[in-house]
């Protein structure tokens, strides 16, 4: 399972699901953010470029932007999360995913960190 999940330096996780990638933030990022009180997700069907600000996430402390990890199209967003933003703190790697995107070539994921590399990165 660990092999199927990749991590960015922006503390996002990317998991391949069919021909899409599911994107969320890591436990480490969720911990740093503290209690999340607001999430704004992109519209389904939006075409995004790598590093576009696609998600706004606000904790009691501050606002942060989540960037698109790659060029692609947002095909599905986790709408229920906007009603229950606190879930990001409870299950950041599972139920609290942000969006699913379609990218041209799944092999682009090879450039990101493995779980072991990410653990080194944050330590």
């Amino acid at each position, binding site marked *: 399972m660990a092999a199927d999940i990749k991590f960015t330096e922006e503390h996002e996780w990317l998991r391949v699901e069919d021909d899409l990638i599911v994107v969320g933030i890591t436990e480490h990022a969720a911990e740093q953010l*503290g*209690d999340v*009180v*607001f999430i704004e997700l992109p519209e389904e069907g939006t075409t995004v470029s790598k590093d576009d600000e696609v998600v*706004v996430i*606000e904790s*009691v*402390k501050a*606002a942060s932007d989540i960037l698109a990890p790659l060029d692609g199209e947002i095909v599905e967003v986790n709408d229920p999360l*906007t009603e229950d933003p606190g879930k990001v703190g409870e299950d950041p790697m599972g139920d609290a995913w942000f969006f699913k995107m379609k990218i041209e070539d799944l092999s682009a994921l090879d450039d990101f960190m493995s779980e072991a590399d990410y653990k080194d990165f944050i330590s």
Partner: protein
Amino acid sequence: MSDQATALMRTPLYEFHVAQGAKMVPFAGYEMPVHYPLGVMKEHLHTRAGAGLFDVSHMGQVMLSSSDGFEALALALESIVPVDVLGLAPGRQRYGIFTDETGGILDDLMISNTGDALFLVVNAACKMDDIAHLNASLPDHVTVTEIADRALLALQGPMAEMALARLVPQVIDLKFMDSVRITIDAMEWWISRSGYTGEDGFEISIPAELAPEIADKLIAMEEVEPIGLGARDSLRLEAGLCLYGHDIDTTTSPVEGNIAWAIQKVRRSGGAREGGFPGADRILSELHNGAERKRVGLLPQGRAPMREGTPLFATSESDDQIGEITSGGFGPSAQCPVAMGYLPTELASNGTELFAELRGKRLPVTVAPMPFHATSYKR
């Protein structure tokens, strides 16, 4: 040597914070706890339900005394604050501000009458300037002493009285804004029934060497948790209390800042000691005629928090910015985003609907009364 110039100071409770697992951040030149493992949200809610212990030792504690007696001392301070200091009874505390010649606000502070002296608590970021201002402005008979060997703790919340009374039983007799000195085991405790959270509670000045032991004793009590600066900010925001350097500063007058209540009648036009403070011309005129703009409460209509610097507009289309949010965030007790900011007085009445521009979008926001969470002072 440049490291020394930028080195952060530590309060007497630094080791306490670290031992409690605080996340430490630089604040006003000090290394301060922004939150503990509980997190900002739970720390906030705990303070409103139980009792929260805050380290506010970074704030300036200043004693003013005079060789000419209390009346001369009070009148001297009145020359730089637009407050009735002479009428402040022994054992009582009052909110005040230092004004400048243009009617702006140099700092806000608490003033206590100790019986023969005046004890001031000023903001951490302003304390050096405040002390210089006091020294430069007050007559020679006044001695200005920075109290650097005492810690300042705040214990806030509905269970603060019960908790503190285990250490100092006398506190149950104090009312809101009472300020007393109590000697316990040859140590002087300077305690006022006040704070900056909207809750009942106490500010406690104790000798620095005593502070870690007292902090440990307090948090060993079931109802007490240590609370960081993050929750201190959300608590004071919900209480509608302004934060110096954000909601008020040298560009805002007390009337604009909506803290004219701090200027008692005796210092206003027609009062026995009318004016006689920096910026009196403008401030007295604004007290009479109103100011062009005013600090108000703002309730964003959606779920998006609106933070400091968010511009305000009269409509969803208009190009002319009419005001700005000066403090804002999510209110954990209000359970919605809350904010305050400045608006032209004609648009400042409660219920007025406006728009804030957030990430390129115009979102509705309504002028609303403060506080956003009812205060529970013990009057």
